């Protein structure tokens, strides 16, 4: 039963991500990636990482995908965009991806990842365990990440602020 669930979730994520990279319409690509994210969240739940599954759905499927959809609608790109690379470049890209897949698989085929643990801590993925880890061992990185968010926010505002000089030029031209 668990095995069937794992393989079906894996198949859904792989198929939807392949559809994502080959679909012409950016809107559909985002929706296919959403399916992939939900199946990955299911895999997190299967691994007993409930907290990360919830955070994954909220951050990726919620915030990031909404941001992507908002930008696509904002730029009015829902019509299919016909910018495609030449057939040669596309073939080389697919070949490179398959080659990397082949190399990594053969390199890791005979690697011993250690036998499965005798005793698995069932509470490893709960919010209480991860909260203790985050606020004891990773307290400084946690605080630094808040500074990172602040700097990202300031950067975004500066990026998209209209240049004051340009506005004055436009006013002068119109006046």
């Amino acid at each position, binding site marked *: 039963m668990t095995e069937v669930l794992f393989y079906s979730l894996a198949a859904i994520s*792989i198929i939807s*991500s392949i559809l994502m*990279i080959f679909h012409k319409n950016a809107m559909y690509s985002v929706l296919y990636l959403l399916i992939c994210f939900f199946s990955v969240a299911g895999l997190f739940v299967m691994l007993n990482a409930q907290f990360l599954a919830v955070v*994954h759905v909220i*951050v990726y499927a919620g915030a990031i995908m909404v941001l992507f959809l908002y930008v696509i609608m904002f730029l009015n790109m829902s019509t299919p965009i016909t910018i495609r*690379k030449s057939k040669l470049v596309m073939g080389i890209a697919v070949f490179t991806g398959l080659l990397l897949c082949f190399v990594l698989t053969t390199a890791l085929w005979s690697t011993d990842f250690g036998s*499965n*643990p005798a005793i698995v801590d069932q509470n490893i993925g709960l919010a209480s365990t991860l909260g203790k880890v985050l606020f004891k061992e990773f307290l400084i990185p946690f605080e630094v990440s808040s500074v990172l968010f602040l700097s990202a926010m300031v*950067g975004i505002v500066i990026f998209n602020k209209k240049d004051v000089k340009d506005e004055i030029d436009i006013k002068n031209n119109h006046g």
Partner: protein
Amino acid sequence: MNNMAGLQDQLRLVPLEHYVFLCIVLFCIGMTGVLLRRNLINVFLSIELMLNSVNLLAVAFSVYHNDPNGQAFVFFVMVVAAAEVAVGLAMLVMIYRNVRTVDINALNQLKW
């Protein structure tokens, strides 16, 4: 206790190797997407897919090796990914305002 035995069966049923190979496939699909598409939005989506596969791999190793630090790392990867997407999309909107397209080849003057 019953639940505990169920979890161990679950871990025994799906070996860690299968998670590793799934993550390799997802990562390669993401890399192919970055190389394949010229639309900036699709490039960002492919990068998200690659980050996602790495997260899944870190969680799998963390659970199978009984170490919560791996999941804390996944949390930080998510934080950085959220900041990266926000800044990247802001840059995309700025590029679109300037060159009126999201084709990455419109920015080929960065080559020189």
